[in-house]
């Protein structure tokens, strides 16, 4: 579904990604781990068209998307839940959800989807008229995920969804990730919580210093001595 080859990108003259190669097959959960500053967020932002790619190609369902504007990429079916959630704090929960569906034409189908996602994230239903900024961190993460789903993506990019959440919320988030995938949405998951993310993954990559260092099935990486030492606390 998504095929990235030789991808270079960065900020100004600073090159962060130095030839990333990675694939996300349709219907799967692919996990990307790597230490702080490895370039994971930069990779997702490059895929979403926010950070310009300098070299290499990004193919999505056969289209080259590495030169497309961010809104065009969303229209093609790739949506991102950014690191730090970045809900629109001064807008209501409902307005945030509506903005998630910005690329779609309003109508029955949209209204139906909204109901469906509110069933999936019941905490949001009670708070539709609240300002997003007044939600707890966990609720904001739910909102960020529901907002992204409102675009009906084929591929969902998740950047550290469990970061900074209470343990119970972390469980819930990983449970929801599984449920989203079971609905047929393909996932590229970036996580600090390597253990949980690898348990969930069909396939996984390790990114270090802007390059893929290691790849394999979730269980292969969980058994890899390098991964155990660097990401699973020895």
């Amino acid at each position, binding site marked *: 579904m998504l095929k990235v080859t030789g991808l270079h990108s960065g900020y100004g003259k600073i090159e962060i990604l130095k030839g990333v190669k990675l694939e996300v097959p349709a219907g799967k959960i692919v996990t990307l781990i790597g230490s702080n500053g490895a370039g994971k967020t930069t990779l997702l932002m490059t895929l979403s068209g926010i950070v310009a790619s300098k070299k290499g190609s990004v193919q999505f369902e056969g289209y080259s998307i590495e030169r497309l504007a*961010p*809104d065009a990429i969303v229209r093609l079916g790739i949506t991102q839940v*950014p690191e730090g959630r*970045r809900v629109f*704090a001064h807008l209501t929960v409902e307005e945030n959800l509506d903005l998630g569906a910005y690329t779609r034409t309003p109508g029955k189908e949209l209204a139906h989807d909204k109901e469906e996602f509110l069933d999936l994230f019941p905490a949001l239903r009670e708070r539709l008229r609240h300002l997003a900024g007044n939600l707890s961190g966990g609720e904001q993460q739910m909102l960020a995920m529901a907002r992204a789903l409102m675009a009906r993506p084929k591929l969902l990019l998740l950047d550290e969804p469990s970061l900074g959440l209470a343990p119970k919320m972390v469980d819930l988030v990983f449970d929801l990730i599984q449920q989203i995938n079971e609905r047929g949405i393909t996932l590229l998951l970036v996580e600090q919580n390597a253990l949980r993310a690898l348990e969930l993954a069909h396939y996984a990559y390790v990114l270090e210093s802007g390059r893929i260092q290691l790849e394999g099935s979730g269980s292969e990486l969980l058994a890899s001595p390098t991964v155990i030492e660097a990401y699973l606390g020895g």
Partner: protein
Amino acid sequence: MSALDIFFQQIINGLTLGIIYAMIALGYTMVYGIAQLINFAHGEIFMVGAYLGLTIYLAIQGFAFGPAGLVILVPLIFIFTMLGCSALGALVEQTAYRPLHNAPRLAPLITAIGVSFLLQNAVMLLYGPQDKYFPNLIPIHRFSFGAVTFTNLQMIIAAAALILMGLLNLVIMHTRTGKAMRALAEDRQAAYLMGIPVNRVITQTFVIGSAMAGAGGLMFGMYYNTINFHDGYLAGLKAFTAAVLGGIGNIPGALIGGILIGVLEGLGAGYLSSEWKNVFAFFILILILLFRPQGLLGTRVVKKL
């Protein structure tokens, strides 16, 4: 006139003026809040609005509307003036600012000065450098309470501003575009990630802000009966002060700032000297920048009007 009469009279005059400043300040603040850009050519859009309104009036006055026709004529002039200014605003955005998206912050400011000169000179060439008479679009009636008077025109200006600001609030709070504007004001990248076409929303912001400024220009012409191609410069600077005073990027702040500047100017003209009235606005601007650069209400675009 007693000191108290002067006070009330100048409050009324200042309010009218303040409403006009607010109409301009709204565009400054929206463009800053949403596009992170100070559109110093905005005052010129206001000035073009005055000339465009006059031109439209001169073009259609011959159709002998009669008194009842005024109810249609005046709104029509407003609508066409606003449409024309919107188109001009969109053109300015696309030609002068869009290409500088990734340029240093100073570049669009310099371009804005260029656009200002261009628009001023275009109007001067078309209409001449001298003051232009702006006829009364409606018969003026005066209402007096003791020594204090106000006119039906002042009420019409206030009513028109109220309607337009109400519509603006409706657009910003309840439409898809309005939500996108507020999202953009808060977090441009996140807005992009939602698939919001950021460039298009920025153009829409210019369109709306320019429509408000155009209506303000028309009000200005109706109120003063003379217009000049220089008028956008001073009014624009005062409206900019109003926007900063209210908290640049903050829509209700622009309204409050505009009215405050207008009233202060009115009082200053009434008690001190009308030659000094222009100094007050800039004195205020310097004071705010020194002591409260975030403005009275803080810099946020999303609060309700």
